[in-house]
């Protein structure tokens, strides 16, 4: 096994209900990065690279100056706009550090949607251009609508009931009750409340949909050599992947494998590169923009065949530290906070360190799978040093 780079610091800002952050988005980014660098025991001046995903405002030039970076050697973002890129950002940092292009790369994401507007809101005028004509003209407008279309067909093909979607939401909410940082801590969810909640877009109830929040999260990635005398035990990146399966790169529901979450190739590469199997994974974070696509991503990553995925997630199989597959142990996008999936990366690292509020015993392998339903997918697998 080739271990190429290691995570040495994890940090975040406070997380807020959307629109209520006291800080600006750039301030949130700097707070999260400072906390991650401090957690590592590094000096800010040692940071020489930045990666993010779908970031357009908190650019590395501005960050370098604000944070007092000595020299900037690497700055990049993955293609593909959305939470599907969160693990691809880590992959780029891993590639830069292991390839010798940079020594201490910060990966981060900051969101202040009160300051800059929301994803879930349709941004359209009374005139449609390009590919939007083929969907928006008919009222198919938001990420929820796209994922609902995929989920409905997946449920039909594999005889999946609404209870499987509920199982995803209930696991996230249950785990959030253990995490004081989680915005849903103290607000438990019952199966009855789930079913009684209003429809947003069938087959998604209110509790199938993640909220939008304000906050920032960051990690620091460096070489095993530099990690040796730092404060925390390093968490190696065992494998990372980003990609697509053949025929899946062109959207509007004409992908060859529709309904796909875009994780067929990502799963293949993660297991190929790591030399382990899904059954070896001790704890997994799956980006839940909506519950349904998690079921698709989980089966495409190889945890269970699509026809068996409902059984795989049912009867509390995902809830708590002793679950069959401990899942979204910080509460995830639904329960902790929607920091565009970066909170899941931090949680995956914390599980290897033994610092989770829903700590799984003896974690050797900790997986984080990025956003499903939008291409290309990405994932990262952390391991014990």
């Amino acid at each position, binding site marked *: 096994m080739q271990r190429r780079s290691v995570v040495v610091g994890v940090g975040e800002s406070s997380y807020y209900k959307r629109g209520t952050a006291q800080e600006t988005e750039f301030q949130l980014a700097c707070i999260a990065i400072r906390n991650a660098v401090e957690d590592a025991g590094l000096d800010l001046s040692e940071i020489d690279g930045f990666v993010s995903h779908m970031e357009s405002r908190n650019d590395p030039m501005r960050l370098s100056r604000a944070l007092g970076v000595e020299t900037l050697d690497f700055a990049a973002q993955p293609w593909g706009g959305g939470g599907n890129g969160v693990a691809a950002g880590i992959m780029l940092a891993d590639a830069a550090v292991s390839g010798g292009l940079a020594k201490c790369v910060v990966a981060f994401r900051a969101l202040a949607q009160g300051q800059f507007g929301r994803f879930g809101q349709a941004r359209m005028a*009374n005139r449609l251009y390009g590919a939007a004509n083929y969907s928006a003209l008919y009222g198919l407008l938001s990420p929820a609508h796209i994922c609902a279309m995929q989920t*409905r067909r997946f449920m039909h093909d594999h005889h999946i009931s609404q209870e499987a979607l509920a199982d995803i939401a209930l696991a996230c909410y249950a785990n959030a009750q253990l995490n004081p940082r989680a915005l849903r801590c103290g607000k438990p969810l019952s199966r009855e409340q789930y079913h009684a909640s209003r429809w947003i877009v069938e087959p998604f109830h209110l509790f199938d949909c993640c909220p939008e929040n304000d906050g920032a999260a960051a990690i620091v990635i460096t070489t095993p050599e530099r990690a040796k005398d730092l404060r925390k035990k390093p968490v190696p990146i065992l494998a990372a992947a980003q990609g697509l399966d053949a025929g899946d790169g062109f959207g509007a529901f004409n992908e060859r494998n529709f309904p796909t979450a875009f994780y067929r190739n990502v799963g293949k590469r993660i297991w190929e590169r790591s030399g382990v199997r899904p059954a070896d994974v001790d704890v997994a974070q799956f980006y839940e923009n909506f519950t349904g696509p998690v079921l698709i991503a989980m089966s495409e990553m190889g945890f269970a065949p699509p026809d068996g995925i409902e059984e795989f997630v049912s009867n509390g199989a995902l809830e708590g530290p002793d679950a069959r597959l401990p899942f979204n142990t910080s509460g995830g996008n639904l329960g902790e906070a929607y920091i565009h999936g970066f909170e899941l990366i931090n949680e995956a690292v914390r599980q290897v360190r033994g610092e989770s509020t829903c700590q799984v015993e003896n974690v050797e392998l900790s997986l984080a799978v990025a956003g499903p339903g939008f291409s290309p997918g990405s994932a990262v697998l952390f391991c014990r040093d």
Partner: protein
Amino acid sequence: MSRYLGDAWALPYLDPQIRPFFSSGVIRIQVCRSCDAPQHPPDDVCHACQGTEFSHRDSAGLGTVHSFIIVHHPVHPALTERVPYAVALITLDDMPQIRVCGNIVDAAPEAVSIGQPVRATFEEIHDAETGEDLTIPQWETLTG
């Protein structure tokens, strides 16, 4: 003719690639001149042979509901009075690899189901701003 989502809903801007689908009065799909492969939505390059010249093929306009959603929460103010509405994904019977979105204009949202046979119908609209005459593809149910 009144539109499924209301007459105030957005209209397409018809560039040469988009115009055939929304103004021909049939379900008109882009086809590669070199290899005859249909693709949707249209693209600048053929996904089968990388050809760059295209013609079109008209579907007979019969299809099957492949998936659908029922929108309850209006994500745009113009749809507040229109929810709940259904959006369906239709597989064309004579080009089964092609899927197109549309509304099932003669059925209540809760009556839409996967496998439902449908037939194309067209919303005829004169776009006063651009002067274009549009035929927006929509779908109505066929009883087996």
